């Protein structure tokens, strides 16, 4: 049990624990802050997968922007009655069984697949970032998804402003 595996188990436990708290906590803002803890755990997992760029982007985009957007939305829809009522639908146990079955099915699939355990060598992540930058722009690389992503972001921006903007 090398120290790397210990760090992995601790991070996985923290991530899954805070994910459970996100799903089961009553007050909405506590759920949002547990979501931030879960996202931070996922960022540590990315760092352990030697994709440092994505660990930083995860903290920047998810924790810096999406979590704060969720907290703003929670604040905008403050409704005192909301916090006292039961947060979960009556047949929540059905959803719990379904989720457990999905998890069991996936675990069986993963274990039976028998992935080879050795770790291929990796060049340092600087070349990964440069390769990623070039791949996003090369016509034979991923140029089309790059431009379509910008059109999609524009549509998301214009659409949500149109919906959320309230002329005083």
């Amino acid at each position, binding site marked *: 049990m090398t120290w790397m595996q210990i760090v992995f188990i601790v991070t996985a436990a923290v991530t899954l624990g805070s994910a459970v708290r996100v799903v089961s906590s009553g007050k909405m803002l506590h759920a949002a802050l547990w979501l931030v803890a879960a996202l931070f755990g996922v960022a540590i997992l990315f760092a352990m997968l030697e994709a440092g760029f994505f660990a930083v982007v995860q903290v*920047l985009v998810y924790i810096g922007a999406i979590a704060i*957007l969720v907290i703003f939305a929670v604040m905008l829809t*403050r409704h005192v009655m909301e916090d006292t009522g039961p947060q979960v639908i009556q047949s929540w146990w059905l959803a719990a069984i379904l989720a457990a079955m999905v998890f069991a099915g996936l675990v069986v699939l993963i274990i039976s697949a028998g992935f080879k355990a050795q770790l291929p060598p990796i060049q340092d992540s600087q070349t990964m970032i*440069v390769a990623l930058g070039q791949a996003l722009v090369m016509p034979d690389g991923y140029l089309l998804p790059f*431009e379509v992503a910008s059109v999609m972001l*524009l549509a998301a*921006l214009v659409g949500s402003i149109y919906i959320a903007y309230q002329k005083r």
Partner: protein
Amino acid sequence: MLNDWLYIGIFLAISAFLPAAAIVIAGFLAPKKPNTIKNQIYECGIETVGETWVQFKAQYYIFGLIFLIFDVETVFLYPWAVAFNQMTLYGVLEALLFVLILAGGLVYAWRKGALEWV
């Protein structure tokens, strides 16, 4: 590559430990005489009026939204910027198109008046 992030992890632990230790030490040094009046919420001297969970304007959400979209845009642009030296002019124009499309979103928000801080 991995011990870089190990160093950051250790540094995060240390930089969280230092202020916490200072606060705990100050906790021992400081006197503890709580009384009900002292613990009341500070409201410029008057009683708390109305509910604490106050309503908000949609303005906050729209600024958070535009920040999120421009944040994701920079996530696309940073790898491109790192690979800039090996890039042809064609690649530069594509990134320009990417930025101009999103600048269109900013112009829309401006014309619609969503950027006003009401």
